[in-house]
């Protein structure tokens, strides 16, 4: 009995390590083959080079796509977070009719096949006579970022102690002053996380961008175009490595901000209690 109890966690730990290995397996090969001299990704590695990275900087189509992606991701994350703040604040603070169904509707893009959202948005855009451009991509990205932004913000706003706002009002602070000096600093970490998460999603998103863009390509759409040419693969892998590094940095920042904030609110809770 005790032997079994001791055995179980160690088996589970081994499984956990294997599982993490499985998750990281494909991710690891991107950087490895991106600094390999051979144009086809295969073992044994033939030698170390940074050539593919140097080539990236001198490909105008790629730098354009990178710039497009950046613009789209910044706009989409700002808009999605703004919509997320309104919705999360309403959901965590007020009771109103159809609250749960509205929340369900806003979360729906998460469980719908992306291709169906993409083609239906495409139909609307074309029927409205809108020209497909990076703006239509932003519209699409905002829609699929909202569920993520909403869940980050809802959990951030839920830990929020309403009595602090009341205390501030009682001590004579104006409503706007309360919002600026009490509410905002407490919800700022959730807002920053939401911005970073939405930015990362938009940066990597392919299906919506593929259907909704006109002639301008975002990075994933550019990569998709390059995948047809075997000779372009090392460049794509190099680009992928850079994107990977960018995503990891952004998410680590988001996680640190979120954790520091939750620790701080916990401490404050302890002080008040």
């Amino acid at each position, binding site marked *: 009995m005790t032997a079994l109890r001791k055995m179980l966690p160690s088996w589970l730990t081994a*499984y956990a390590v294997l599982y993490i290995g499985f998750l990281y397996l494909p991710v690891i*090969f991107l950087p490895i083959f991106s600094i390999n001299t051979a144009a086809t990704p295969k073992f044994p590695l033939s030698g170390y080079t940074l050539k593919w990275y140097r080539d990236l900087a001198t490909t105008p189509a790629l730098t354009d796509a990178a710039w497009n992606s950046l613009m789209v991701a910044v706009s989409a994350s700002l808009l999605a977070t703004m919509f997320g703040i*309104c919705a999360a604040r309403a959901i965590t603070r007020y009771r*109103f009719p159809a609250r749960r169904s509205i929340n369900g509707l806003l979360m729906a893009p998460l469980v719908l096949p992306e291709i169906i959202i993409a*083609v*239906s948005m*495409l*139909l609307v855009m074309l029927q409205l006579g809108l020209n497909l451009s990076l703006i239509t991509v932003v*519209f699409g990205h905002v829609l699929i970022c909202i569920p993520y932004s909403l869940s980050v913000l809802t959990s951030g706003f839920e830990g929020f102690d309403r009595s602090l706002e009341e205390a501030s009002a009682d001590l004579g602070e104006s409503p*706007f002053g309360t919002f600026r000096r009490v509410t905002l600093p407490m919800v700022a970490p959730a807002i920053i996380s939401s911005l970073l998460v939405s930015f990362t999603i938009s940066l990597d998103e392919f299906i919506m961008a593929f259907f909704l863009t006109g002639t301008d390509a975002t990075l994933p759409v550019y990569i998709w175009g390059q995948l047809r040419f075997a000779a372009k693969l090392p460049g794509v892998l190099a680009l992928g490595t850079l994107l990977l590094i960018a995503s990891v940095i952004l998410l680590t920042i988001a996680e640190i901000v979120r954790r520091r904030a939750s620790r701080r609110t916990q401490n404050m809770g302890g002080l008040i209690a």
Partner: protein
Amino acid sequence: MTVPAETIVAMPPERGRKRNWLQSESATGLGLISPTLIYALIFLVVPILLVIANSFWTQHYLVVDRTFTLENYRIAVTDPIYRDLLMRSLWISLLVSFFTVVLAYPIAFFISFHGGRHKGLWLFLITIPFWTSYLLRVMSWKVILGYNGVLNATLMGLGITDQPSDAFLYNTSAVVITLTHAWATFAVLPIFVSLEKIDRTLIEAATDLGDGPVRRFLRITLPLSAPGIISAVLIVMIPTVGDFVTPKLVGGKDGVMIANAIQAQFGKAANWPLGAALSVTTMAVVTAIAAAVVLTIRTAARRIR
């Protein structure tokens, strides 16, 4: 749209002098959520309604004929090509959800029960790969499973095979492996959350009453984590049906899925009404199957208890 919302934030309802409906909590909440709601209505609800409408129309080159017809559905359901694609997509998504959930359960269990202080770190480790570009992860699987790929190199290096095999790539199993990997995080998180919610005193009680670890797991932990398993199944199965990148890159001829057909109708083939009918049929069928799976899990969980 946002201006009125902000004014409402700045003026809590308590300050209103007139206590009419406009200042009630309901109105404030609805007013605050309305920008987001309107956005979702315009870009999600209306588009989906339009797709449904389109599926009853016909298209002659560039002209859309808006007379009601069920012809598209007849094609979508009876044409062997689409029927087979739909069947295969459903089968693949069932397999993928089964494997993701079965593989994810132990890890969610491990983090929840044995994660200790490092729970957050484990969860973070698990979410990182999910954030890397989906396109590139599919690409990497192609590199791993290919003829000159990593898997073949490893097998030959270990002396298990003496020549590379082309059996790993361009088939259904390549699609299943890639998708199982792609959706792993989405299965771990909901199961973890439901395990976290389990009242640990119930497990202690079962131990005190003489249940061994296996019985305890089967009678307490597993049934109580059913909601997590259900949301994992839903969140993996429905989107998987609509994937077209994975089948296109690693699926080969045998791995083509219904989404590839939908994409073709909205792209090269340019028959939107048929594409719309295929989308609606896919959604309807996958929702029905997901509902059946959910019901089965729920009944099973109840029976064990």
